């Protein structure tokens, strides 16, 4: 494994972890795509779409795409070290916050959390649109994006079933 690549992976994902605000990393997916595909050329569009698909459809926390990219780019050391780099910053901050703030309901955190909500909302929508613009090359993919979005909004179904449904339709149309 190339040490320089491992180091860069850890540095990039370590940095990004501080911007995962509002509870999830979905808002960072376009940034991850930009760095991994365009900036560093570690993955092609197809591999990125594959890892995104697996990370969303497999059971597990929503940041599984991080170790998956580490694994695809730099093998097992890549998986573990990229994930560790991604977790360490928030780990330290959360430990300090839990130590310092005896009252979990501190006004500062409440204010922050409230301010995050419209930010997360807008960036989630943006994230979906940017991914759709890169992944949707054919009518069937556009249909998958619109169909999953509409069904999720209308019926609030389990996302895994929606994604598997999209996969079945996609492979049938071929």
């Amino acid at each position: 494994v190339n040490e320089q690549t491992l180091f860069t992976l850890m540095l990039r994902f370590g940095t990004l972890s501080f911007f995962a605000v509002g509870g999830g990393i979905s808002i960072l997916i376009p940034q991850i795509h930009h760095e991994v595909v365009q900036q560093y050329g570690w993955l092609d569009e197809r591999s990125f779409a594959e890892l995104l698909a697996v990370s969303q459809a497999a059971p597990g926390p929503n940041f599984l795409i991080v170790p998956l990219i580490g694994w695809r780019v730099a093998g097992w050391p890549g998986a573990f070290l990229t994930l560790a780099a991604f977790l360490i910053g928030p780990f330290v901050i959360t430990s300090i916050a839990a130590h310092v703030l005896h009252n979990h309901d501190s006004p500062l955190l409440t204010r922050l959390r409230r301010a995050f909500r419209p930010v997360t909302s807008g960036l989630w929508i943006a994230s979906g649109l940017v991914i759709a613009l890169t992944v949707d090359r054919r009518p069937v993919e556009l249909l998958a994006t619109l169909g999953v979005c509409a069904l999720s909004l209308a019926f609030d179904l389990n996302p895994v079933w929606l994604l598997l449904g999209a996969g079945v339709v996609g492979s049938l149309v071929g």
Partner: protein
Amino acid sequence: MEPPARLALVDLAVAFAQIGLNSVGGAAAPLRAVIVKQRKWLDEAEFAEIFGMCQALPGATGANMAVILGRRSGLLGSVVAVAALVTPSMLLAIAIAAFATHVAAHSARFAAGETAVAAGAAGLFIANGARLAWALWRAVGEGDRVYRAIRLAVIAAGVVLVVGFRLWIPAAVVVLVAASLLADRRTGAPK
């Protein structure tokens, strides 16, 4: 609050592995099911408070929650809880990805299905954002027009800055959070 009981490392590990493997589209439901219902490590009110705190801190909510619950058994407890949360599902995801790559190399249909799943994930992100926007719109009473308009403006700005101008997302996060905080302060955000 009285100091909570220490948790055995093995209990932490099993509980958080279970939470990780049950996390689908967000960790909130399995976190609550295991920590409140099953293990009774927190009551509903404590859980809501700590969950809110974890959302306000950078990083994934589930991992932050693992850090905080793990602290009851010290630093090692936090490490064990986080490792248990992520490792089993990571190994499973890597196995699935390896299998998927193998099959996709031989079957164009499977590869097309994979791309459709990624396209579907984009639809899911849009739906999640839209659902939150709708909840924010409805949460504010009719009287708070200005506050409501500002929140919608923050949502719209996020979409325009990232999709339209391809602004570097960390910069977008900082700018939007600052604007949102400022707006909350100016308008005396209602609870």
